[in-house]
Structures are given as C-alpha cells and as structure tokens.
C-alpha cells in the first residue's frame, strides 16, 4: 500500500478542518459552553437559538448533536464564533449583569402549545416566579396545569427561556428537566430562595 508513502501530519488535517468549520455555513452551529450550573451545548440556526442543553442530562454532546441532526438538520458544525452572543449573554446573566436575554429564539423544537407556554413563561420577570396554574391560564389552557408542566419540561432553551421561574402553588419547587439542584441554583442567581 502506497498510502504510507505520503508525508502526512495529522495536525495539518485538523487545522484544515477548523478553517472549514469557521468559514462554512451550516444549518446548525454549536458550541460547548461552561457555566456555573454545568456544561451546556448551545446550538443556533439562522433564525436564532434553537437548543441549550445540559450536557450531563442529555446523554452527552454526541447524543445532543444526534437529536439535532434528526430533528433540525444534519448539517451541524462546531463554530464557537457563531455562538459568541449566546456565550456573552450567559456570562453576563451569571455575573448578575443581565436580567433578560436579547437572543432571538428558533422555536423549531417546540409544539404549538409548547410555544404558547414558553412565550408566557418568558414574560415572568427576573427575580420573580409564577405557578404552573397561572402559566396555564396565561397560555390559554386554564385546566391544563399538567400539560403546561410537560411543555415546560420540554423547553429546548432553558435558562434563556426561564422555566426555572415556575413553581407549584404553595411554593414547592415542582420539577426541572436539568435537575432540581439546577432550578434552585438559577433561582439563587436571581436572588430567590
């Protein structure tokens, strides 16, 4: 086999691949971002932030990317520069310098009802909370607390869309897809609990 005759440095191939990822225009760009509540995988499309996934709660980076490939597009590339605004706003939020996000959201991964619930949830101000029942009413489904809870649990962009601000009537934490310790941590960032 003549393959071994070619002078070859794997670093050249790796560098070429990075240059490609920087210049290409994938349907989905992602980056891995560290935060005080753990490692996140953030993904954007041309429309906006489509996914913000807790790495350890979703089977790891590869599993997250696989699901994005199936549900949004397989044309996914790691392109940290395209996630600069997301990274910056998250840093500001955790540093206490930002109380609302200016990031456009791509709602592709939500159902119609889910979108209503999450939009209503986005109206809960920083540092405040609402109950599942209140949110259900705001989303136009006054008897749908459970469905509302499910829709919140399926929030594809936690933290930015603040489903952590929704509690049980009576003050119980309720649930949180990323783990209750994270819900508590986010409420603490906002000066609650």
């Amino acid at each position: 086999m003549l393959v071994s005759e070619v002078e070859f440095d794997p670093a050249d191939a790796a560098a070429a691949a990075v240059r490609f990822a920087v210049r290409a225009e994938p349907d989905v760009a992602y980056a891995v971002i560290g935060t005080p509540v753990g490692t996140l995988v953030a993904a954007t499309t041309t429309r906006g932030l489509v996914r913000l996934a807790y790495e350890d709660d979703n089977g790891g980076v590869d599993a997250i990317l696989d699901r994005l490939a199936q549900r949004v597009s397989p044309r996914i590339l790691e392109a940290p520069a395209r996630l600069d605004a997301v990274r910056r706003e998250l840093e500001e939020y955790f540093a206490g310098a930002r109380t609302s996000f200016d990031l456009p959201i791509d709602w592709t991964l939500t159902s119609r009802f889910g979108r209503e619930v999450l939009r209503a949830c986005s109206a809960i101000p920083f540092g405040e909370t609402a109950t599942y029942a209140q949110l259900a009413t705001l989303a136009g489904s006054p008897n749908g607390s459970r469905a509302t809870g499910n829709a919140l649990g399926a929030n594809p962009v936690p933290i930015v869309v603040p489903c952590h601000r929704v509690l049980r009537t009576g003050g119980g934490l309720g649930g949180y897809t990323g783990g209750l310790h994270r819900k508590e941590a986010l409420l603490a960032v906002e000066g609650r609990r």
Partner: protein
Amino acid sequence: MLRVTPRPFQRFLDAHREDVWRYLAAAVGRHDADDCFQETFMAALRAYPDLRPGSNERAWVLTIAHRKTVDHFRARARRAVPAGDDLLEAAGFDPPARDEGGLWARVGALPPKQRGAVLLRYAGDLTHAEVALALGCTEEAARRSAHEGLKRLREDLGDARV
C-alpha cells in the same frame, strides 16, 4: 444506531478529514491541498442531506475530493501558457509543485485516467469498484488504469518500492 438521517456533519468531518487530507496531499501536493480540502467539504456539506444512511461515507467523500483534484488540474492547465515544452504543461501533464519528492511527482505526471485510478486506489484506499464509480467507468477499466499506472511508475522509477 439505526439512522434515518446522516450523522452530524461535524462527526463526518472528524472521521474523514485525515483520509481526505492525505489523499489530496498525494494528488495535488501539500501546498494546494488546503484549497481542495475546503472545496471538497463545502461540496459534501451541500450534498449531505442526500447521503443515504448506510452508504459508504469514505468512498463518497473521496469521490468528491477526486472531482476537486480534476478541477484543480484543469484550472492549472488553462492557466499555463503553451510555448514549446510548455505544451505538455498546458495538456495537464505537468506534475504539481510538491515537496515530497519522486514517487508522487511521477504519479502527477501520469495521464489523467491512470493518475486518477492510482491516486484513488493507493492514496485513497478505495476498492476497484469504488474507483470505477468515482471515475465513471467500468470496474475492469478502473483495474486496467490502476495497473497500467503502476506499471508506468515502476518503469519510470526503476525500483521495487511501488
């Protein structure tokens, strides 16, 4: 896992970047490999949703890389100004500038069909059937081109390395 769509393109890139780079370094030289590398993966990205799960990703991307090297050689031939000995260069027979030395320089000097077959088979490590698909000929013709190309290299180089 059972796939309906191709895997994330980043993983495809990770998996094949070295094979593509090695192939292009042999085909067009390290200096020009990057341009062809970028064009190869740009084309692959555009066509990616059409890739059937279960198909041979490696042969697919090396076939694209092969087409980009053909474009590269054609463009070089067009740029060359024919004048005497330069007629050979204009015909695309000029070996690309490279720093690896003898073997791959002589491959570059082969006629296009033999050059393509030898590169795809021995730098790309494709089967004869895959080479045939990439070149758009029969498997028999692909084998013949690779065989004749190797024979020519042995005659040119006169050593047992090939």
